[in-house]
């Protein structure tokens, strides 16, 4: 039986279930000192002076440093790797502000002490002379005339403009029988990985720097540390130990890493910083915060001909690693899975006095999917079609599909996913119950919401990234080594933070080499063990890293074949290969297993002339295309029309992610993604007050849902293997988040249809729902 396709239980679980996880804060090298960061309580303030004397004199304090004290440690500011346009304002972003704090949470000083508690106590004693100045936190207010400037060198708070136009958009709109124009607000979100960030740095006498950090990207960090701190890259070892979730937020290059590394070098002691949750809410990147305008041009029957999108995307106070590029990751998807002729996307990046935004699960694609999936609902209302009819009329239905925005969708079958979704839901029965409740004027109304989505993930073809001015490639590097006794090491450039790489990747290599899943050791997350990689984001681990692993395994098999042929004294072509064993054609009992070839390769006593000893191979895979998961998600909500309360009653998800390696793990990814997308629709919102204070600064007021708010999900799949890679796989890490938000909001609007409500902002809180009903009644 092959391992691929089986729900193999996770190798990762044993230590995590028994409390043996290695999350950064669990590590305590002898002599470690602790860092606490003093952060601006003001959204915007001049720093006229900092008095550290009381803090410096406090018990247990090793040192107190202002931004000015440490400025010489940084050879540059924190990097932005994605300068998307010529007009981008690459504003300076120092790890600690020196003259001006630009958001509530901007670090201004740092205390180092012998204990965590002493550092925290002393941080309270740092006296900062702030001079508050006008601030702006709202993306539209920030572009209004006379708005306070976040950066003096960014007039109008404009960070950049970027556009993508194909086809004769003006003509398509002029010729359209029907147009709809909608405006949506993507509220600001706080990623909230359960493990707050942490970083620990040790420097030895030779100046070798070891950084243990809760990151999704140890290789990216190594490069970034060199850029910011000027340490030769070869002197830096970065370890991502067990990482407690990321969702994009741990991909970023953060000030605290630089502070900790800089101080460890300065002090010659291990230095550790562990983020607290209320600190995380201001100090770790936020997501979304975009105002979207979307227009559809269509025929009288509702066939969409053109899409025009205008975005204003909040960058926050600075440009983090990929902040400007996040809207671009959705730029191709504003026509969704629908066939259109003309396409116009325009985005303005805007500075605000807020925590910087960056990639949060889905990054650009949830925004695009939300816009088109809601806009098609508006179109359906206008042309008098159902949510199902309007979608069927517009689906792209031949693959590969060259889409108007300029890329090619690899594979899909959107009708099949919708069919299956309706079947799993039992659509007719739910429609009948909805009709009954409407007829009875029931207090609790049912709403059914659809989201038929396609997304692009598996980041990414390096040439496309280059064309988009992204500062790195999109390849991944995987190595396979068969040890002399036949067990196998996989060295992976993509590193997990909960996704189950160790199990999934072991399944892939086990099948290729004919070994047991348990014979495979998965190594990652340490640049000393795996020196090369592009890390984990954008649902890339399987469609890029997994495919690299496939190819590396094939290279191992090819070499083993040469060894086997030499040993068996036949031509390589005269060997069959199955389940790890080469056998001589016609004499199947004469053969050699890959494991045996590994021993032969290790002794090197009798190898073909010129062959290098050892049985290992590396493959660096650069994907020729993105992978394009698609599917149909359907939400059923029950809305209490008197209180505005929304309950998610059912959730059906039919996803097409190509071939599946481990169904259990894939389902888990979808479950978690759905919960996060539903949370955007119903509960989560980062709120700033008019002075720029974050009102949702903790888990008391930023509403991450618990099990009590969510139902079990009803999952199914369709499978159209991706033709662009030999595994036929697509990414799955973000599909749930991308698809689910519009499904839920469309369901809320469907429930409110009898009241004539056609628009509502997220999250659809009881207050918003209640107000929408009251206003519609007037």
């Amino acid at each position, binding site marked *: 039986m092959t391992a691929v396709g089986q729900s193999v239980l996770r190798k990762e679980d044993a230590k*995590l279930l028994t409390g043996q996880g290695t999350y950064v804060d669990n590590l305590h090298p002898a002599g470690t000192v602790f860092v606490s960061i003093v952060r601006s309580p003001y959204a915007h303030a001049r720093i006229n002076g900092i008095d550290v004397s009381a803090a410096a004199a406090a018990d247990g304090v090793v040192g107190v440093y202002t931004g000015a004290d440490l400025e010489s440690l940084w050879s540059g500011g924190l990097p932005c790797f994605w300068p998307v346009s010529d007009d981008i304002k690459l504003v300076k972003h120092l790890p600690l502000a020196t003259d001006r704090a630009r958001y509530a949470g901007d670090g201004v000083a740092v205390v180092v002490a012998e204990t965590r508690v002493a550092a925290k106590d002393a941080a309270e004693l740092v006296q900062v002379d702030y001079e508050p100045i006008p601030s702006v936190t709202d993306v539209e207010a920030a572009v209004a005339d006379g708005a306070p400037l976040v950066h003096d060198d960014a007039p109008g708070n404009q960070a950049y403009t970027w556009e993508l136009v194909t086809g004769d958009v003006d003509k398509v709109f002029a010729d359209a029988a029907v147009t709809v124009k909608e405006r949506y607000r993507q509220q600001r979100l706080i990623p909230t990985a*359960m493990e707050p960030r942490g970083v620990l740095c040790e420097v030895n006498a030779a100046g070798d720097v070891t950084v243990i950090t809760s990151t999704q990207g140890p290789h990216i960090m190594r490069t970034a540390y060199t850029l910011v701190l000027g340490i030769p890259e070869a002197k830096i070892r970065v370890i991502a130990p067990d990482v*407690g979730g990321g969702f994009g937020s741990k991909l970023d290059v953060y000030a605290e890493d630089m502070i900790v590394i800089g101080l460890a070098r300065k002090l010659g002691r291990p230095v550790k910083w562990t983020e607290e949750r209320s600190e995380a809410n201001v100090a770790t990147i936020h997501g979304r915060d975009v105002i979207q305008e979307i227009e559809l041009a269509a025929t009288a029957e509702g066939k969409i001909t053109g899409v025009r999108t205008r975005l204003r995307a909040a960058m926050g106070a600075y440009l983090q690693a990929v902040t400007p590029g996040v809207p671009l990751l959705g730029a191709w998807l504003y026509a969704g899975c629908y066939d259109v002729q003309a396409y116009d996307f325009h985005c303005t990046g805007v500075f605000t006095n807020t925590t910087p935004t960056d990639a949060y699960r889905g990054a650009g694609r949830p925004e695009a999917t939300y816009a088109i999936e809601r806009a098609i609902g508006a179109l359906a209302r206008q042309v008098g079609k159902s949510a199902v009819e309007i979608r069927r009329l517009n689906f792209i239905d031949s693959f590969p599909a060259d889409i108007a925005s300029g890329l090619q969708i690899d594979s899909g079958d959107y009708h099949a996913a919708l069919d299956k979704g309706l079947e799993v839901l039992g659509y007719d029965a739910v429609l009948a119950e909805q009709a009954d409740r409407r007829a009875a004027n029931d207090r609790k109304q049912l709403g059914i919401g659809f989201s038929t989505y396609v997304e692009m993930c598996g980041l990414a073809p390096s040439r496309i990234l280059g064309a988009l001015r992204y500062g790195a490639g999109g390849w991944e590097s995987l190595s396979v080594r068969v040890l002399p006794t036949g067990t196998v090491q996989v060295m992976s450039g993509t590193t997990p933070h909960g996704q189950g790489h160790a199990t999934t990747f072991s399944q892939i290599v086990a099948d290729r080499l004919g070994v047991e899943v348990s014979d495979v050791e998965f190594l990652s997350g340490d640049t000393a063990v795996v020196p090369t990689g592009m890390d984990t984001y954008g649902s890339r681990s399987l469609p890029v890293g997994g495919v690299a692993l496939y190819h590396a395994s094939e290279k191992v098999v090819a070499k083993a074949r040469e060894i086997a042929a030499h040993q068996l004294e036949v031509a390589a072509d005269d060997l069959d290969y199955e389940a790890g064993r080469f056998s001589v054609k016609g004499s199947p009992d004469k053969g050699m297993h890959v494991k045996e070839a590994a021993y032969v390769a290790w002794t090197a006593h009798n190898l073909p002339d010129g062959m290098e000893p050892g049985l290992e191979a590396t493959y660096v895979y650069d994907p020729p295309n993105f992978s394009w998961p698609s599917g149909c998600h359907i939400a059923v909500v029950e809305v209490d029309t008197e209180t505005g309360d929304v309950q998610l009653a059912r959730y059906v998800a039919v996803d097409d992610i190509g071939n599946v390696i481990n169904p259990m793990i894939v389902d888990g990814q979808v479950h978690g993604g759905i919960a996060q997308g539903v949370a955007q629709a119903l509960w989560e919102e980062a709120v700033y007050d008019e002075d720029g204070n974050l009102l949702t600064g903790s888990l008391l007021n930023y509403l991450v849902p618990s099990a009590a708010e969510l139902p079990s999900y009803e999952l199914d799949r369709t499978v159209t293997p991706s033709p662009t890679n030999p595994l036929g796989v697509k990414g799955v890490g973000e599909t749930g988040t991308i698809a689910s938000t519009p499904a839920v909001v469309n369901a809320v609007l469907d429930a409110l249809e009898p009241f004539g409500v056609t628009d509502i902002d997220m999250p659809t809180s009881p207050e918003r729902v209640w107000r929408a009903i009251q206003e519609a009644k007037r």
Partner: protein
Amino acid sequence: MKQIAVTVNGTRHEAEVEPRQLLVYFLREQLRLTGTNVGCDTSSCGSCTVLLDGESVKSCTLLAVQADGHEVTTIEGLADGDTYHPMQQAFHEHHALQCGFCTPGMVLAAVSYLKENPKPTEAEVRLALEGNLCRCTGYHNIVKAILAASGAEA
């Protein structure tokens, strides 16, 4: 400083603690039992859940001095040697953990809850987990695992 004696996972520990020391930091920083995680600072997330005299409690809501004379079970003390506790086994079999950070608290909260209500419904399990947040699993498989461990039908 205050002198306390706490039995943790069957071992009696005598220690001096600051009166303001939270139980979770006593476990993590003094006893170096780091399986108990800290996920928030408002007693919202439940990552730090342990058993106090057999009953689940968020160890960030308790001072170490309040545990004086009591028995604490952390995730490190749940398994029977190399054999998982049935709840750990159920979490493993039902893929109820991804990054694993909420898992110790989630498992212990579930163990405690099933003592209280041995055959819960799905809705009851969901309500019982209200104080334990997970960002990875969407709770689907956690609920399934707990129902499986209870012997109730999922």
